[in-house]
């Protein structure tokens, strides 16, 4: 490696070396792309210099400066231990109580959650009484706020897994109106299930609900999730409700479905947060997707640009999603620690997010 080059990464995790000039060029291109996509301001020259310093830091692991620490929340419950390596886990078998206590007492989690192994609203319905029992038991032991977490995952409501026609199949046959109608019906069903599951688990003592990967099945999934959040908020005025997104832009699988008169397809983080607020969320999980063919610098600048504008426009705390393939971090089963810590520091110190 030439003296003036720095170890960094590509978006797929590959180790590369780059000059400071090349890193800066990628930072500029990354922020320009986000600004263009989201019609938002690009990062300032100062922000880019700060990002350059973070990326070019010679230490493998970097951290925020004292006083800049933020709330640290983990999702997917026990699965980050019990799942296999391909499922975001470590293949270490343990009970759900043990996992909760390890997160609280060993990993420094400020909040944690109980999660079903399928991590989706729909499969929780038939086992909700068991989930309530577990929630109650763990609440006796844990001190940190303990939530219930699940993905709205509206894909499970479409054929072959659910009762509604699958938009992917219908659109392939150019049955576009029918596809839209099925999406709307599925969204209503999803909202009802969220209300059912959410209210039951709150009654068992949950401190809140983490909606993970909202809008994963597109705009109708988002509307169904938002309606569910609205119902849950109405019944539980003091609950902590986090709405974490699936992607930086809401996919328009329906294309025209609205929430409170606003079309949600194509909304970016700074716009997503406003509809989540309106639904009753009190924390927003911003997501930005990683491009595996671009460098860490390009991806970090792009993600920070989106999240900075989101934080600016939000009236509620913004917790940035930082993991495999999101938040500027490479798409890799075990995200490299150098990239994870750099993206985390940038999100906190430049984008000013409230939590990770």
């Amino acid at each position, binding site marked *: 490696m030439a003296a003036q080059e720095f170890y960094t990464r590509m978006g797929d995790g590959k180790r590369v070396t780059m000059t400071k000039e090349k890193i800066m060029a990628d930072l500029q291109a990354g922020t320009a792309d986000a600004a263009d996509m989201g019609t938002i301001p690009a990062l300032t020259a100062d922000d880019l210099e700060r990002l350059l310093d973070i990326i070019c830091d010679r230490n493998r692991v970097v951290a925020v400066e004292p006083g800049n620490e933020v709330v640290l929340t983990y999702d997917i419950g026990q699965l980050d231990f019990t799942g296999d390596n391909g*499922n975001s886990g470590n293949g270490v078998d343990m009970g759900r109580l043990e996992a909760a206590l390890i997160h609280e007492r060993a990993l420094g989690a400020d909040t944690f959650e109980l999660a079903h192994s399928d991590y989706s609203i729909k499969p929780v319905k038939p086992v909700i009484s068991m989930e309530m029992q577990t929630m109650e038991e763990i609440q006796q032991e844990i001190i940190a706020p303990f939530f219930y977490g699940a993905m709205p995952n509206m894909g499970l409501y479409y054929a072959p897994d659910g009762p509604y026609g699958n938009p992917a199949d219908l659109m392939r046959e150019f049955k576009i109106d029918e596809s839209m109608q099925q999406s709307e019906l599925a969204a209503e069903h999803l909202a009802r299930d969220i209300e059912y599951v959410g209210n039951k688990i709150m009654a068992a003592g949950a401190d809140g609900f983490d909606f993970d990967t909202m809008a994963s099945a597109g705009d109708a999934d988002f509307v169904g999730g938002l309606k569910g959040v609205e119902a849950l908020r109405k019944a539980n005025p003091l609950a902590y409700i986090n709405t974490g997104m699936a992607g930086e832009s809401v996919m328009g699988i329906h*294309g025209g479905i609205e929430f409170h008169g606003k079309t949600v397809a194509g909304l970016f983080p700074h716009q997503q947060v406003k509809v989540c607020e309106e639904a009753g969320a009190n924390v927003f999980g911003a997501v930005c997707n990683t491009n*595996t063919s671009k460098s860490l610098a390009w991806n970090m600048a792009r993600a920070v640009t989106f999240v900075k504008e989101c934080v600016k426009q939000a009236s509620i705390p913004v917790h940035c999603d930082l993991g495999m393939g999101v938040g500027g971090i490479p798409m890799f089963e075990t995200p490299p620690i150098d990239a994870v810590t750099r993206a985390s520091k940038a999100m906190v110190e430049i984008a000013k997010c409230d939590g990770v």
Partner: protein
Amino acid sequence: MAGFENEKKALQDAMVAYKVPGILDAVEKARAAKMPANDIINAMGDGMTEVGVLFERGRLFLPHVLSAAAGMTKAMEVLGEDLKAQGGAAAAKKASVVMGTVEGDVHDIGKSICSTMLQCAGFDVHDLGRDVPKQKFIDECNNGCSMCGMSALMTTTMTVQRDVIEMMKEAGIRDKIVVMVGGAPVTQSWCDKIGADVYGESASETVSKVKDL
């Protein structure tokens, strides 16, 4: 295509506006102006490329892309006849492509978008849907498909792409097939590692790469 600039622009605009009646209207006007069928098809193709770009930029959404594709498909019913009447054959398909989301994986939105865009680019697409058994990809290749596109949205299923490539080698057909891979966890490195031929970061990138093959 000199002399048909207005028609060309109207066709492209109609595609971007994605309404089937509007596309058919623009086609009828172009035919009435005696614009050659091949040129009409090319102009619609350019419009579809623009639709793809707007889709990638989050300005148009999937139903809009499909509506534009439906308009083009409908228009081809008439234009195919025109081509024959004008002494040419109906536009030859570029190649036959089998597409599918690999077994164990039910995510097929991205794959469906890619299939639609390949179809609009003139490929003969056999979309097998999601959760496709490995052998079905091989069967389609044995039945004439010269390209095979496999999507995987999970790290737990992306390995099936490698399995299918190995099955192609065992069947002695690997060298005859262009293998395309895509999906959220799939990267160029993975493509290289398993010996696939084309990695597409997005649907439009995939189409642009295979058009150049």
